[in-house]
């Protein structure tokens, strides 16, 4: 028996969400007495995956697109008792494509380990985090796609046997170009997010936001109107109709906290709000709040954090 886990890499190194995925698979596998098979195209040392619970590492040249990869995972998971895929941008396309070709049950947005395995039940976020659904998955080889950062990374030991396989990927479209900002933290997986809204007055004021993000190793994000007016790229828009984030720390600066914004960020573990208006609705959803002007508070916070980092 086995649980197959899709391991994504980023420029050859395993993604953090991939370690979380292997750990997820390990937890599930130990509930049913199965082994963890990690599927990766990375040449990074397989021992790294064994440290999170991988028993077998299949190295394979993975396809370039979700469809190509889903076809390969189908072949590799034919006998599997289940499949685990992190909910990264790629994972969010691979998981449903795989579910369709395998005719397997799928839970996306999963935020818990299996509550039970016969039947398989997990918790998942629904209605933009305004609800939590306990879902039951039936049939053979169900697929779990989880929200990055929702489970956490844990060390576990796996056998770490490595083998390589060749399965050609069938692509249905052609990739003609990719453009990826190097070194940027991808929002859905970020452990810390610094987000700013219309309170910042204009795009020229984002320097201090980027500085704050840099000290924290955080990704930057923004409210919807900010990307609508073109102050920041669409890809930074978080909320119900943007990217949903789940970091340990979410700092909201000059954002009022409209229900649609909260819907995409309220799953964050710790929320800090900086706003001039003590009545801003965001304070109700925050853990820590500062009533103050972003232009004064943010530079001070950057300095205080730098001092803290230097001292620790």
């Amino acid at each position, binding site marked *: 028996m086995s649980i197959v886990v899709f391991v994504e890499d980023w420029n050859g190194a395993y993604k953090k969400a991939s370690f979380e995925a292997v750990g997820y698979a390990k937890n599930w596998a130990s509930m049913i007495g199965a082994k963890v098979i990690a599927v990766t195209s990375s040449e990074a040392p397989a021992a790294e995956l064994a440290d999170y619970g991988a028993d077998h590492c299949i190295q394979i040249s993975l396809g370039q697109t979700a469809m190509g990869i889903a076809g390969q995972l189908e072949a590799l998971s034919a006998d599997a008792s289940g499949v685990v895929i992190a909910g990264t*941008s790629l994972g969010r396309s691979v998981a449903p494509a795989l579910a369709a070709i395998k005719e397997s049950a799928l839970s996306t947005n999963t935020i818990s380990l299996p509550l039970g395995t016969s039947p398989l039940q997990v918790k998942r976020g629904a209605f933009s985090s305004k609800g939590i659904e306990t879902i039951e998955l039936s049939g053979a080889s169900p697929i779990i796609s989880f929200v990055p950062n929702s489970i956490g990374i844990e060390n576990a030991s796996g056998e770490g046997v490595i083998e390589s396989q060749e399965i050609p990927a069938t692509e249905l479209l052609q990739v003609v170009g990719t453009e990826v900002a190097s070194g940027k933290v991808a929002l859905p997986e970020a452990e810390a997010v610094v987000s700013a809204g219309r309170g910042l007055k204009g795009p020229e004021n984002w320097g201090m936001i980027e500085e704050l993000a840099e000290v924290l190793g955080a990704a930057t994000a923004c409210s919807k109107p900010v990307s*609508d007016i073109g102050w920041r790229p669409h890809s930074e828009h978080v909320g119900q109709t943007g990217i949903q984030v789940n970091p340990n720390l979410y700092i909201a600066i000059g954002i009022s906290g409209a229900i649609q914004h909260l819907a995409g960020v309220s799953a964050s573990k710790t929320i*800090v709000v900086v706003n001039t208006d003590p009545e801003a609705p965001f304070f109700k959803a925050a*853990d*820590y*709040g*500062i009533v103050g002007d972003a232009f004064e508070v943010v530079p001070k916070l950057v300095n205080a954090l730098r001092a803290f980092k230097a001292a620790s």
Partner: protein
Amino acid sequence: MNILVCISHVPDTTAKINFTADGTSLDPAGVQFVINPYDEFGLTKALHLKEAQGGSITVINVGPATTEPTLRKALAIGADKAVRIDATPMDAITVAKELKNHIEANSYDVIICGQESIDYNGQQVPAMLAAMLRLPFANACVGLSIQNSTATATSEIDGGHATYEATLPMVIGGKKGLVEEKDLRIPNMRGIMSARTKPLEVIASSETGGLTSAVAFEKPAGKAEVKMVDAENVDELVRLLHEEAKAI
């Protein structure tokens, strides 16, 4: 060009979400339903494509009769024809199968879905549909141009963008960027009047069952009271984040 826009009927973004007393489903009382915001971008994109190159736009929903006002609204915005597959789907795979059956029986050049529905936030139907139909698929699609039978699609990927080229037909999971917010169409009086006479065909469901089921819904635990920190004392915030929240 024959364009199919898949429309999901969802609670309005400002809706307060409540669950039925037994906790197994959404309580629709007092909830206003709308076209899924992601699908509004898709519908407007379809109108742009039609205006540039001619063709016809069909909007489709898999759902019970209560979703018809949403389809009528899509007609008022400018779709030519609506189809409702009469079913109360259990899960995304069932929705995708119903859509697939319809698509196979008709011929569409582009199938535009939204990246995700804001109700169950599955982000499942479009990729499933593409996989079932063995068609090219671009998720998180923020740009689409079509020349003859070739589509060029731009998708958001982690940390950037990818550009794809595909031979039609293809499936996209679209979002803001496909068209700009300011270009979104809203129904005007003429649209509303003409929507009344546009065809809304109801097709019987061809699938049963599903692979997942909702056991229970709950609301997330409420937040504890916010701790306010003085603006002059950001060091205190740093201390709290480190010692109390363990967030840094």
